[in-house]
């Protein structure tokens, strides 16, 4: 009797998992399908013929390309800054000899908890207060802030994974703390640091909420351009843009996964 119950529950479990998979994949499948639609108007799924016209449209549209250029420059700059600042903060948290480390750690991760709309609005107020209205620098600042929790977290995971004895070995063998960091800790944490950089890049490219507040007429990111496009004249170039973003992000994430395992990093150990 109990066996029947167990089997039924197990079947139910598989069913729920299958539902979740379908629910997660359906929107992606529809978006990808529609991006290759040969029709000129927004028709029903699935498309009857395939074409690359929406991609051509996407890559030749000045509005999109301007957004893409901004997105990439902001993402590259914020990745560099966020990785360096994140590594510095993580080193302090891993090696520092001071109190309130836990509190500091929580503070560093707080942008994860605060809704990005709030961060965006607050930053808008802050930047206009100091005379920096929208534009590249505010966008960069915003993106550094939203990517920092990831770069700190991921590089910290790499640094704390280094056995204490290995770092002590470097010291007792005659390397000062500075050299021990560069010859032992840094090389041993390099995969994590690389992963941190990729995370920063991906989350910067992906952001809408903060960018929406900090964009201007001339300086806006690709996701902001997509939102704008959706409001003004909705067509399937948005799907093409989405597919393009998806391909870039997935490729990057697969790179990191190959190197160190995204799941391991997200689980935090």
């Amino acid at each position, binding site marked *: 009797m109990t066996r029947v119950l167990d089997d039924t529950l197990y079947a139910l479990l598989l069913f729920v998992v299958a539902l979740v998979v379908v629910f997660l994949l359906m929107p992606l499948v529809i978006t990808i399908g529609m991006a290759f639609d040969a029709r000129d108007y927004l028709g029903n799924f699935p498309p009857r013929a395939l074409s690359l016209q929406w991609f051509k449209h996407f890559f030749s549209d000045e509005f999109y390309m301007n957004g893409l250029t901004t997105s990439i420059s902001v993402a590259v700059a914020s990745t560099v800054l966020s990785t360096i600042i994140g590594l510095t903060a993580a080193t302090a948290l891993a090696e520092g000899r001071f109190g309130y480390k836990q509190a500091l750690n929580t503070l560093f991760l707080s942008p994860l908890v605060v809704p990005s709309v709030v961060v965006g609005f607050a930053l808008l107020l802050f930047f206009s207060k100091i005379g920096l209205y929208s534009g590249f620098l505010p966008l960069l600042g915003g993106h550094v802030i939203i990517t920092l929790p990831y770069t700190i977290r991921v590089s910290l995971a790499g640094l704390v994974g280094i056995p204490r*004895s*290995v770092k*002590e070995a470097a010291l007792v*063998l005659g390397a000062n703390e500075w050299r021990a960091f560069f010859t032992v800790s840094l090389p041993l944490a390099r995969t994590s640091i690389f992963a941190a950089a990729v995370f920063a890049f991906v989350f910067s490219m992906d952001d809408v909420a903060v960018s929406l507040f900090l964009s201007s007429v001339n300086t806006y990111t690709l996701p902001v351009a997509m939102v704008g496009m959706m409001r003004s004249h909705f067509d399937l170039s948005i799907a093409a843009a989405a597919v393009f973003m998806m391909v870039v992000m997935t490729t990057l994430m697969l790179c990191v996964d190959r190197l160190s395992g995204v799941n391991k990093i997200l689980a935090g150990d």
Partner: protein
Amino acid sequence: MDTPSIVLELRNVVKSFGAITAVNGVSLTVVKGSIISLLGPSGCGKTTLLRIIAGFEDPDAGDVLLGSKNMVGMRPYERNVGLLFQDYALFPHMTVQKNVSYSLRHRGVDDAAAKKRTAEMLNLVGMSDFAGRYPQNLSGGQQQRVALGRALASNPELILLDEPLSALDAKLRLELRTELKRILKTAGSTAVVVTHDQEEAMTLGERVVVMEKGKIMQVGTPAQIYECPQTRFVAEFIGRSNWFGGTLGGKVGEHRELLCKGFATLLIPEPKGGHNVYDACIRPEFIEVRSRGQAAGENRGGVANTIHGVIKEMMYLGSELEFIIMLEGGQEIIVIERNSRSKSRQRGDLVTLSFMPSNLIVIGRE
């Protein structure tokens, strides 16, 4: 004759962590070329002492002299001390060669000299053929050798070994014990071995320092520590022991009577100190076993203590037999006999035990 120079001197070293005093007034000198063992149970302060000598911890009070320079407040890289870590702590991203030459690169040795010294060290530890390998592709014993070569490369004034053999399996441990001693002697190193394993301490160390609760209990050669422990703690910590407690009786020849309540009067060597109650200890291998009624064997002429008992448990260990014997008073003792195949003993056999008074260790009860 010139006296050997002192490499390490600890003067009244004290170190506390919060309410716990890990090291409580330790003074010790180590002369050039000697190997000493710091032996004690976990939490006795030996590891803290090692970390103080290496420079990872600063003592709250006292001095740490290396050569004749006071090292208190000096960082680890400002001293020339080698450390063999318990987990070896090899750099996983460097080859064996790079691991061994690490200290040379950071202590400003020029490239040619460093290369020569690295080759010498790899040869000394027998790892020349593995110079290009990464640590994760080496066995535990090989990693141990590389770690030792790395620690010795900068020719440290003193080398510290933290539980050097505990991470290895039993067979490899025996092999490396001899090898470790040979390497240290060849390199002319002055070494401090920290261990909780008495066998490791006695085989590696020419002198053994027994520690408990942050204090040194006794310093001596392995034989002195084993045969003449000065406290019950040392006697019980090193080797196995059987204890008989009693009050002093009259003098019998050169011996003294110990009146053990309930089962026997033992003859003991004349004890020191004016205590009322004494504990006498006999090591299991110093007790001779014979079947009840059988005449005493080659009893080297002297007076022997004789007690009776019955075999309660028997363990066959190959080279020796271990018995738990219940004495007439109900006390149980451990006896070890060499396996000679001619004697067959069984559980329940009545036996007579004898041991020489001179083999008894007598300690006054506080």
